[in-house]
């Protein structure tokens, strides 16, 4: 069961998720403090650890549009958040897959703060309202990276294979 802790609108840019003025901070261990830095209520709750790992942020369409900054993903991954949105901007989605941030594309989802969701590979069940919504699967091309646990372990396997002349 995953609880919806914050609902955002359409076109949430990486400037909202991780403002440009914190871009000098790059390490995944350090970026979470600046997640949603300009939405003080949300940033405050995250930093105070009032939000449990596995909680859900809801976005509208085109979530993560804008910059390729990976901090926008590592900052959310640091809290083990799940992002459910109508759809995602390309680079944000790829970065999420690469870093293992759970993203769920669910175009018709109806949910509000405080609802609990049950997320499966094919559907999101809103257990508060009792309604179920279909999920659009991740691009096939990227499934192998998800299964390897992210792009670092996936690339590590390939680097090792290359060194062994395979």
């Amino acid at each position, binding site marked *: 069961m995953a609880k919806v802790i914050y609902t955002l609108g359409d076109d949430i840019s990486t400037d909202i998720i991780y403002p440009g003025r914190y871009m000098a901070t*790059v390490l995944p261990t350090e970026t979470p403090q600046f997640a949603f830095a300009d939405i003080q209520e949300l940033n405050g709750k995250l930093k105070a650890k009032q939000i449990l790992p596995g909680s859900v942020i809801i976005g509208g369409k085109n979530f993560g549009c804008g910059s390729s900054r990976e901090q926008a993903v590592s900052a959310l991954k640091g809290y083990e958040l799940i992002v459910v949105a109508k759809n995602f*901007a390309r680079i944000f989605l790829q970065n999420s897959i690469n870093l293992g941030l759970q993203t769920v594309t669910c175009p018709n989802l109806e949910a509000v703060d405080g609802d609990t969701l049950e997320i499966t590979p094919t559907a999101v069940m809103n257990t508060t309202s009792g309604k179920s919504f279909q999920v659009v699967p991740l691009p096939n091309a990227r499934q192998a990276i998800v299964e390897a646990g992210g*792009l670092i372990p996936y690339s590590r396997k390939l680097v090792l294979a290359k060194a062994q002349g395979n």
Partner: protein
Amino acid sequence: MGMTVVEKILARASGLNSVKAGDVVEPNVDLAMSHENAALVMNQYLEIYQGTELMPKLWDPLKIGIIFDHRVPAESPKTASNQKKIREFVAANSIAKFHDIRGDVGGICHQVLPENGYVRPGDVVVGTDSHMTSHGALGAFAFGIGATEMASVWALGKVLNVEVPATIQVNVKGTFKKFVGPKDLILHLIGRLTAEGANFKVIEFHGPAIKSMSTSGRLVICNMSVEAGATSGIVPVDDETIRYLRKESGVKGKIDLVTPDKDAVYEQVININVSALEPQIACPHTVDNVKPIKEVKGTKVNQIVIGSCTNGRLDDLALAAKILKGKKVAQGTRMLIFPASGRIFNQALTKGYIGTFMKAGAVVMNSGCGPCLGVHEGALGDGEVALSTTNRNFKGRMGNPNSEVYLCSPAVAAASALTGVITAPRTTKGGKH
């Protein structure tokens, strides 16, 4: 079945005879670029080798570019220290295409790459920056990736598991009115497509208005294709591309003439006639909130910005200088100008544009990303409004979530600097701004 330009490029880079939209390929990379975020790429790259007992080895240091532009000169000890680490890495690994903070060969990556001939038609170019789409102006397939994906490219020399994008064909005909140009065209197109309309797709530009457009203008439309969500924009190579590469980038040797097949398959075709196009303005807080200037003219502006990877090139500065010459920036309005590269800055100096700007009261800044991403220069105050030739107007973009950014062409920015309100450039002779 015929192929689009990007399908042809991806087929060859992947060692295949043909590919089509939706296929999964692993193209070899011709150029892999990063800026200050190379600090994170380095971290992730070393991470790949953790526990393998292998020595980390770059696939090809000659094909890696690192251009400092995002926070130059450094705004903080943290950035300065990261830049120092990157310099040491560049030296230790003999990375060839490195541009440090310099007034001669430095500048914004999306100008430094083209002006040095680092990008060729038919290349696969990746970079840890969303505006990599710019380089489609030279007939390359160029797209933005994250730092971890770049670390993987550094180790393996290819991009893993790439889905061949579908292509939208945009045909542009007609002749721009005076003081209307490529920026107005791309803002208009983004307004039509919406901010997600080209997500996971390529925009391929065609038509007489593109044929007669300079590479500088093509860089504008490809640069901002990402604001419609596009993986890349691309202009198929033609005589202008070759002229630019030979004359301005000093490229020697064979240039690959990769063009789409006549029977290429497009997901969508959009036709635009620019003859009637008015100056376009993207209003806060999304780039697809585009209106003709008449709907927003008169809006009070506190800060005017001309520059960036979108509109900081010599023709942009020439246009601004023409409008500003002998006049003054309005009281109560600040004007910031930052040329896209050291080379352009020097050319603008020789041509007298820099003097014109300073006499008008503008502040001329060093080449770099500067105010566009609100890190260390040109932040806005609470409730302030900027009118800018840059590419994004997201909430908080210029460093303050309690401010607003409007996007426009260099001509509109210059005309508005003289009045302090959003103003269309006067096209009649002797007109007063």
